[in-house]
């Protein structure tokens, strides 16, 4: 690990990174626009400049070089000395910030980025709030550049991050710079909109409010949002995300850095696929069918009911890959408590096409569930009678099985009518799911599920990586979150805490005990 001196303070940093990255990781706030660790370095915004000590050309004595250097383009070298707090560096920052404001519309009151905009932040911290230009600003149009994205050209700082993203990460190259000089603009070819499956990332990348996500457009002011770290359930990759939510629901999903999985990016599916958690028609009350009549039930009466129904032979539990490791473990534990010979089955695993890899390695997984790996690992641990979900449906139809507990939790309708039909011949069908569907109609007991945003726990991704996610919202009124419910079924006292359960689980399944913590990256959108 090289040691470098920044502003007179020695820090240790990773090898092979630019000084800018080292400074940001060590807590310096260095303004920068064009640099992004996931993209090639262009060193064009010239905002990150620093002073560097160099040997004098003649005397070889070390001293501050008379010119500034782009810290994003200068790799760290053991023993180097640089500084950001100096008159010439700050003078440059002031000027550049003024330049950015020359033609900027400053329509922050109607700008989605306001509150997390680096132009606002930098102007306040490094620049002046005013520009001395008295000429008219030139105005650029707004462009509808794709089905999911808008481009407000006049807010652009021409950092070309978005263009590089489309070229290098998505590999589709829809975005281009057109024109030159101060008239430069970002654009797509007419009729060739920005529509690749990673395109949403350009909105996060954009340091200003130029690229905007139509899903989030005018939806919330960012300072009214609470941000929680989570893991995307949209596929089996285990991409790390931030969830931005408030009392009105979940509003936005953004990538969270993870060097082992998604780096700085997420797919559009992971980004935009959360709307189901806000749906009005989610199940919110347990329902029970008694003597052919359906009535609302209270959570308190359900454990006894389940114990009675599942105690005999021929009972089975379907453990969905949408459940966390902890929940799956609790449910399996309960199953073996009530019926030691109960069949355990991993739930339906939705698959779409093939895994798709992008140039720099980002992969969209075909498997659209977050935790098949974890559920299978847990089932393997429990042993005993097990079968696939298809087999289970068959045995339900031929009468081998009498009582089945099906946990769904999928964002959309998932069961085939044939399977629903097969399961309807049981003596007792318990369905624990998010939405009404063919199965809930036939169920004897319906339990409302909570989506992942309202739960906490850990998922095991397709490569066996275990990662924790936190709860972004409380469960919708009327719902008892899975963890709490299963814990009560198992007879464990107290409030559900995923970390506590993880420790218990880890005593028997060591590889699920530890969650992976990605390296902490500085906020690069800023």
């Amino acid at each position: 690990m090289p040691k470098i001196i920044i502003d007179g303070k020695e820090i240790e940093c990773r090898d092979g990174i630019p000084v800018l990255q080292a400074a940001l990781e060590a807590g310096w706030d260095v303004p920068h626009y064009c640099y992004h660790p996931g993209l090639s370095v262009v060193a064009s915004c010239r905002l990150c400049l620093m002073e560097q000590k160099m040997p004098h050309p003649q005397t070889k004595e070390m001293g501050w070089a008379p010119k500034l250097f782009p810290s994003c383009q200068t790799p760290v070298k053991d023993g180097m000395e640089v500084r950001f707090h100096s008159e010439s560096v700050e003078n440059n920052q002031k000027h550049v910030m003024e330049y950015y404001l020359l033609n900027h519309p400053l329509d922050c009151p109607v700008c989605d980025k306001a509150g997390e905009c680096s132009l606002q932040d930098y102007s306040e911290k490094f620049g002046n709030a005013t520009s001395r230009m008295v000429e008219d600003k030139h105005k650029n149009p707004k462009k509808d550049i794709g089905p999911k994205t808008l481009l407000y050209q006049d807010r652009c700082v021409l950092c070309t991050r978005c263009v590089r993203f489309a070229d290098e990460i998505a590999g589709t190259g829809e975005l281009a710079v057109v024109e030159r000089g101060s008239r430069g603009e970002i654009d797509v070819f007419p009729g060739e909109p920005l529509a690749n499956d990673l395109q949403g990332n350009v909105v996060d990348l954009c340091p200003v409010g130029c690229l905007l996500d139509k899903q989030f457009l005018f939806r919330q002011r960012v300072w009214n949002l609470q941000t929680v770290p989570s893991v995307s359930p949209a596929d089996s990759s285990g991409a790390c995300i931030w969830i931005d939510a408030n009392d009105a629901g979940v509003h936005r999903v953004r990538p969270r850095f993870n060097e082992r999985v998604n780096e700085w990016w997420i797919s559009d599916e992971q980004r935009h696929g959360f709307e189901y958690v806000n749906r009005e028609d989610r199940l919110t009350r347990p329902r029970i069918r008694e003597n052919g009549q359906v009535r609302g039930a209270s959570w308190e009466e359900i454990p006894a009911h389940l114990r009675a129904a599942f105690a005999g032979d021929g009972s089975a539990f379907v453990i969905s890959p949408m459940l966390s490791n902890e929940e799956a473990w609790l449910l399996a534990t309960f199953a073996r408590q009530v019926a030691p010979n109960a069949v355990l089955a991993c739930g339906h695993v939705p698959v779409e096409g093939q895994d798709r890899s992008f140039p720099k390695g980002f992969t969209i997984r075909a498997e659209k569930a977050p935790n098949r790996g974890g559920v299978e690992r847990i089932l393997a641990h429990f042993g005993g009678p097990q079968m696939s979900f298809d087999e289970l449906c068959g045995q339900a139809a031929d009468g081998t099985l009498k009582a089945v507990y099906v946990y769904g939790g999928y964002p959309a309708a998932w069961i085939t009518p044939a399977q629903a039909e097969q399961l309807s011949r049981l003596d007792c069908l318990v369905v624990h799911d998010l939405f009404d569907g063919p199965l809930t109609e036939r169920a004897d007991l319906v339990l409302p599920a909570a989506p992942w945003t309202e739960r906490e726990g850990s998922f095991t991704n397709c490569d066996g990586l275990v990662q924790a996610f936190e709860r972004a919202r409380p469960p919708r009124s009327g719902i008892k979150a899975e963890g709490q419910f299963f814990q009560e079924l198992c007879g464990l006292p107290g409030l559900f805490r995923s970390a506590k359960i993880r420790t218990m689980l880890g005593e028997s399944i060591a590889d699920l005990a530890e969650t992976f913590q990605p390296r902490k990256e500085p906020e690069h959108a800023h």
Partner: protein
Amino acid sequence: MPYEQILMRNVGVKNSQSLKVYQQAGGYASAEKALKMSVEDLVEFVKGGNVRGRGGAGFPAGIKWGFLPKERETTYLCVNADESEPPTFCNRVLMEHDPHMMLEGILIAGYATRTNVAYIYMRGEFTEQFHIVQKAVEQAYEAGYFGTNILGSGYDLECYVHRGAGAYVCGEETGLIESLEGKRGWPRIKPPFPAIAGAFGKPTVVNNVETLAVLPHIIERGLDWWNGLGTANSKGTKMYCISGPVNRPGCYEAPLGISTRELIYGEDFGQGMRDGMKVKACSPGGLSMGFLRGDLFPENPSKGEVDLTSDYDELDCILDFDDVRRYDLLGLGTAAAVVVAEDTDIRRVLTNVCRFYALESCGQCTQCREGTAWMYKIAQRIEAGAGRSFDLDLIEEVTKNMGMMPGMSICGLPDGAAWPIRTLVQKFRAEFEQHLAAQAPNAAAERIIATNPAAYDLPVLQGRALQPSGGTYLVPKD
């Protein structure tokens, strides 16, 4: 004393473009000689001649070639025929009248750099010249100067003409390379330098047309001859250009080291100003190098000393690589002088210069993109008779905060913008102030309100925008 015309020996000769005429004057003999030398000897030989690049930067050619990595498979030679620096036209004259001289230079440089493909990057505005050079290349291929096993030496060189399409910045060597690769001409960050990873990611040498054209002559006449011409650090012969309202605008060859005054007034050069006018200003090295005060200003009483702070005649500036710096010029540049006569409004010159850089900045670097455009807007307002004294300070401040020298840009264009604009504003401040004083008293305020009412509405700017001379609140250094 008329100087010997070496590079321009064929100018005016009938059919000078043809291979036959060139060969009759001993053409391609130097290349033959060079191909018999070892590559190392040839590079050392050229290093000995200190052939400083004629493209503007003045970097010695032999040393540049020496930066190529020892182990390499493919090397490219790019001939910089993008001549876009106003008001420079020496490469045009060379290519128009003696294309084979350049081609012979390409062959020599190609051999010295072990290049197998050379591209002549020629600006799109060169049409006639394109046809001439293309024809010459075809002739050279036929005569066996390009192609495989050239002159039985076993050396292969392909030579292609590549036409640009209108962008000054494509003359910058890495902008040229990007443009050659079929991209927008956005200069690249260095390192890596082109000698390590240039065109198509391979080691590349970029040389100016004139730099290459002198090579045959050095080989023919030897180093002593070359080093005997010119001044201490500036060796050899150079094609000077002079344009503007002089009696005989044109391109004239002389050893490095003539003075600006000689270029304007000399019998062999510009032959003085039209109608006996006085020189107000002169940009002697191409637009980007900055302006000198002309003989409209009084002579400097202390001969030999340069006093930048007073308005003295500066035409004694010697046009070589060193003396120009004493006069606060960026460098020798292309040694192409443009003269501004006494009757020209300096505000118009400022607008023209500002426009050039505003429209030619490629737009990558913030300081260059925004700074040049802003200064152009200000210059237009000043020319329209609505300037403020503060605007001149502002322009000066902007020019001091852009460019490669302070580390604030990727390429040298903004340095080239800063110098002429700053020297204009500084050296001719008195005239600007006179114009400002002659303006209608409220002209600036009215124009500002008319073009940008918002500027006045913004509470932070209220009043301030209207002050005829506001203080800078970003205190410039020094």
